[in-house]
């Protein structure tokens, strides 16, 4: 990475952004911009006051989190009533072991996987492969991520960083046919190949978009139909679910589904919305005979007890990354975690636990413009949470978070000594005559100035103005001012 050398003090996200190839940057920028615009159009067209719905959904989620103990127990008993086995995993390792155990006890060798960000968190696929199991991603994007040994760069469209030519080359390499970058051909080839995988599989693994505590129904949305297939061919269904996925009642689902589909892809409803209330019906020939639900903590309870609880409202629509000017420049891999974009800048460092410092720079990768909050379907005040994490990084003296920030030491010394301050201000005028090239002494200053020009220095006039203005009468300054200060 040449830019690391050139700017050793730059933040990792900046480095990723400058190392991104123009074609990837274009793919990310175009797709995210397109989705942001379509989202706004859909919400404005369909609702008189879409903001009211966002705030309502936020309140329902916040209520659920504030009463999570009650709702988790209610969900557990509803799921059991539906005939599902409920498992609890306090961390990633424990979740993976539970899933492996279910497969081993049921003589299973092959799994088809529907899209699940939680399974990315636990690194389930490599774990199962290491233990002699086959696990195939069936979401088109995730399948391409898998054959390329890549990582998703977006939570809804995982290969937003790839164009069709790259995908076509991957398919050619995997023996799925001669090079053809027509998206329809790419899709047909994946369809044909993955069908055989569905039919061979013993287990279908899914995540959950929502779980109704009231009825124990697992709600899943996909556009492709891969979650349906994963639950039509295999004999066992496992759902891996973060404990924050609950909603209180079935009646809450129309609000959440309407917001999720519009926020993610500007649809009124995602093509397939599945309400799973247990193993297959007695009259049904296809579908799982057994259903397992694994509730995963993996530091969510730690987040719940901290001052960033609101981030657990997230329903993973991806709208905040689509709208984020930093994400659009840097793409998802810059966030070095499972969850990219603004939500990831809050969630990923938190989910690191003690390794928080590794990702403590992420909360700084934001201009705090607030666009992420404006588009959030559950009204998460992301900028506020980013500020809390910046504060935490400062208190923990995380060097990565401070990287690229000029030291405030010199400023502090000058500001606490009137004499030094006065001298510094008079010296400031020199900036107007000295060529700026001579000022690039430190790397942060060089990095900052490589893309900006200093305005003319006009400071130092405040004291003069103070002296010349009329003295205050009874402590109240006179309105008769001769001149306004420059600074």
């Amino acid at each position, binding site marked *: 990475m040449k830019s690391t050398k050139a700017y050793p003090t730059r933040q990792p996200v900046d480095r990723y952004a400058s190392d991104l190839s123009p074609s990837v940057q274009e793919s990310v920028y175009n797709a995210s911009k397109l989705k942001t615009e379509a989202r706004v159009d859909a919400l404005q067209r*369909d609702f008189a006051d879409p903001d009211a719905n966002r705030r309502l959904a936020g309140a329902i989620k916040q209520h659920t989190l504030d009463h999570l103990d009650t709702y988790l127990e209610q969900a557990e008993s509803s799921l059991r009533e539906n005939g599902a086995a409920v498992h609890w995993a306090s961390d990633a390792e424990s979740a993976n072991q539970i899933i492996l155990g279910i497969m081993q006890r049921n003589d299973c060798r092959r799994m088809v996987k529907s899209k699940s960000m939680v399974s990315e968190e636990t690194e389930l696929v490599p774990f199962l492969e290491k233990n002699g199991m086959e696990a195939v991603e069936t979401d088109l994007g995730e399948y391409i991520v898998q054959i390329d040994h890549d990582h998703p760069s977006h939570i809804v469209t995982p290969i937003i960083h790839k164009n069709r030519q790259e995908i076509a080359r991957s398919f050619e390499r995997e023996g799925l046919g001669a090079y053809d970058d027509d*998206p329809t051909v790419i899709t047909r080839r994946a*369809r044909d190949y993955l069908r055989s995988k569905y039919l061979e599989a013993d287990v279908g693994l899914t995540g959950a978009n929502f779980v109704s505590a009231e009825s124990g129904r697992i709600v899943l949305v996909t556009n492709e139909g891969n979650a349906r297939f994963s639950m039509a*061919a295999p004999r066992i269904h496992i759902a891996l679910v973060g404990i924050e996925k609950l909603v209180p009642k079935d*009646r809450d689902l129309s609000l959440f589904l*309407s917001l999720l589909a519009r926020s993610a892809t500007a649809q*009124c409803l995602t093509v397939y919305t599945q309400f799973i209330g247990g193993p*297959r019906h007695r009259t049904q020939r296809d579908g799982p005979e057994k259903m397992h639900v694994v509730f995963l903590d993996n530091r969510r309870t730690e987040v719940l007890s901290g001052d960033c609880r609101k981030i657990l409202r997230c329903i993973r629509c991806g709208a905040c990354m689509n709208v984020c000017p930093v994400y659009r420049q840097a793409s998802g891999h810059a966030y070095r975690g499972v969850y990219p974009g603004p939500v990831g800048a809050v969630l990923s460092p938190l989910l690191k636990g003690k390794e928080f410092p590794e990702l403590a720079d992420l909360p700084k990768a934001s201009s705090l413009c607030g666009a992420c909050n404006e588009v959030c379907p559950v009204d998460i005040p992301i900028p506020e949470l980013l500020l809390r994490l910046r504060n935490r990084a400062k208190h923990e003296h995380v060097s990565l978070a401070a990287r690229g920030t000029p030291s405030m030491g010199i400023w502090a010394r000058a500001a606490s000594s009137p004499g030094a301050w006065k001298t510094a201000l008079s010296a400031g005028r020199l900036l107007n005559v000295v060529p700026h090239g001579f000022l690039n002494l430190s790397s942060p200053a060089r990095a900052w100035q490589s893309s900006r020009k200093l305005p003319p220095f006009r400071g130092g006039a405040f004291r003069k103005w103070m002296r010349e203005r009329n003295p205050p009468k009874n402590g109240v300054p006179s309105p008769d001012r001769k001149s306004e200060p420059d600074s």
Partner: protein
Amino acid sequence: MKDRDTILKRVRDGLAETPERTPYPEYDPACAVMRQPHEFSSLWELFAWRMKSVNGVPLHGWNALGDFLRERALKFGYCDPEYTEAIAAVCGSLDITERFDRNDLDRYEFGITAAAGAIAETGTIVLTDAATRPRLAALAPWIHIAILQEDDIWPDSPTALKRLGDDPSVIWVTGPSKTADVEGILKKIEGVHGPGVQVCCVV
């Protein structure tokens, strides 16, 4: 069991210092029902208009379905035993079977199954485990034809949620299978894993 108790204890401890817990907001789920661009004379009219807007094919009556099957020059497919007679009456040239063999998925050009309901608001078909049999016949063939009783068209999604009943697998289908994974083109690529053509015939 150890993990269960650990997690629930951590949740309780984490919530202990919450000064004010957010109450469940009182609201009418109708707030999530979208407005329509103009008035429709019946739920069927709205459903059909909405279904077309997501690239679905709404048909009214057995004869319309017969025309659809002939126009497409379809030859072989699966049909729910309940409808074979009606299909044979409107399209005699078809070779239809009442058996769906999962090992021969690609032989079936179409699958005809029952729908349990529909949502007019969004042009959505509702499939259930009890009514739509077998699961694969409604999913694997390129063309899925759902047969729906006109009385089972419900106005909106809150109504449909109330009708979930005790079926273990209720699926709302809004148009054909799609993907936005290749360069974010959602509208152009259809038939990813599920049907590329989604039909609903109201009888």
